[in-house]
């Protein structure tokens, strides 16, 4: 197991953990957005969908625990890397024209990630909590579109939209960066990775953003 700890402790090993957990979290986005799309089908369809999920609760719980662990690894690992990087670069330049040599998205991964984390905490303590414990007898659709924790609450909607835009920024760099870390960005798969990246940094965040816009701003009109 010596090789394993050496690998995990190395800078490249830590990056590989970052990339693996990041891509796993990306795959969760697809499933989550797929579920959210049921909202457009109206209260009945959405409530039935959520109840269907509730019928496979043990499986959902296992997935939730796995997801939490992946999140935890991704976050703690990023903190570990950031601390190391700060130590490697303690004295800043008086003038540093970073704009000339790197993208905005690549330089602010920590900030976009941190705001997404705050959103995640709010998201879990509102939607997730309500869905699991306090769902008023299966009124899932009403929770989502309502004005307590739902999209008729301008704060919830505002944070949701902001976080999804920043998620797009995060994945604009993160998705392709993960493949660079695996060493497979610049080969015959390069173009394919670039195309799939657009799905993750643009299409999926847009899909999420449209939900609060439709159910909050257009339909609800708080």
């Amino acid at each position, binding site marked *: 197991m010596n*090789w394993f700890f*050496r*690998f995990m*402790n*190395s*800078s*490249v*090993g*830590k*990056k*590989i953990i970052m990339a693996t957990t990041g891509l796993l979290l990306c795959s969760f986005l697809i499933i989550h957005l797929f579920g959210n799309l049921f909202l457009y089908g109206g209260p009945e369809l959405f409530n039935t969908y959520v109840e269907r999920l509730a019928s496979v609760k043990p499986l959902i719980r296992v997935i939730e625990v796995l997801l939490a662990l992946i999140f935890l690894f991704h976050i703690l690992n990023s903190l570990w*890397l950031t601390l*190391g*990087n700060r*130590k*490697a*670069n*303690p*004295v*800043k*330049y*008086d*003038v*540093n*024209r*970073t704009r*000339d*040599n*790197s*993208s905005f998205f*690549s*330089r602010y*991964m920590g900030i976009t990630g941190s705001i997404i984390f705050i959103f995640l905490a709010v998201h879990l303590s509102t939607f997730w909590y309500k869905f699991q414990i306090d769902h008023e007898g299966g009124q899932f659709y009403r929770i989502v579109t309502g004005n307590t924790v739902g999209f008729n609450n301008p704060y919830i909607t505002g944070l949701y939209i902001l976080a999804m835009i920043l998620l797009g920024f995060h994945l604009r*760099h993160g998705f*392709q*960066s993960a493949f*660079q*870390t*695996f*060493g*497979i*960005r*610049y080969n015959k798969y390069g173009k394919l990775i670039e195309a799939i990246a657009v799905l993750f940094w643009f299409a999926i965040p847009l899909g999420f953003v449209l939900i609060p816009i439709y159910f909050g701003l257009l339909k609800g009109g708080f």
Partner: protein
Amino acid sequence: MQVFLKVWRQADAKSEGQFVTYTVENVTEDMSFFEMLDMLNNQLVLKGEEPIAFDHDCREGICGTCGLFINGRAHGPLRGITTCQLHMRSFNDGDSIVVEPWRAEAFPVIKDLIVDRTAFDRIMSAGGYISVNTGGVPDANTIPVPKPKADEAFDAAACIGCGACVATCKNSSAMLFVAAKVSHLALLPQGQVERKQRALNLIAAMDMEGFGACTNTGACEIECPKEISLVHIARLNREFLKASLI
């Protein structure tokens, strides 16, 4: 023309440094950046002041000795050149120019604009070479190397170890430097014997020297005077992954 310099001055590794401003007159656009500094240093010596210490050797962009952080860019504002290849025609009359040494924990300042880059030498001695029995010079082309591979290996071998990649990286990562060494030898038949161990040892040495981790911002590729590509970092990651897991 006349330029206003703001230069980092530091007496030695232990002293605290500070910026000192100088006005340099009679600068011509044909002067190299270093010739402008030489002129300033002459004036400082005549005044009985300590000249500005900066690293330089070949002054034709091949030795990798020079390296200044000029107006927020490693080796100055142009791409694909070392500091010694920068000329004053890249600046305008009346410009203010901020000149700083490379900043990285692994590159401590020795004096003024000179940093200690022996960390790179220690990384190289951890495996940036091939072991061969010395003897008579073998005939050319006894070991066939396909042209595309030779070209790619040469692109990596163009690394002069100046440290601009580390200097510009927000994490002071030495990945482009290490990638150039690993990629260069991994592409050639002569590098195969020690291929796995090289990737592992160079990464371990890089981490031990206190360089940061790569965030794939790509700044190194832009600032590298030899324009070494991120493709080589991808290969380094692949080499390390294969050597670690397989």
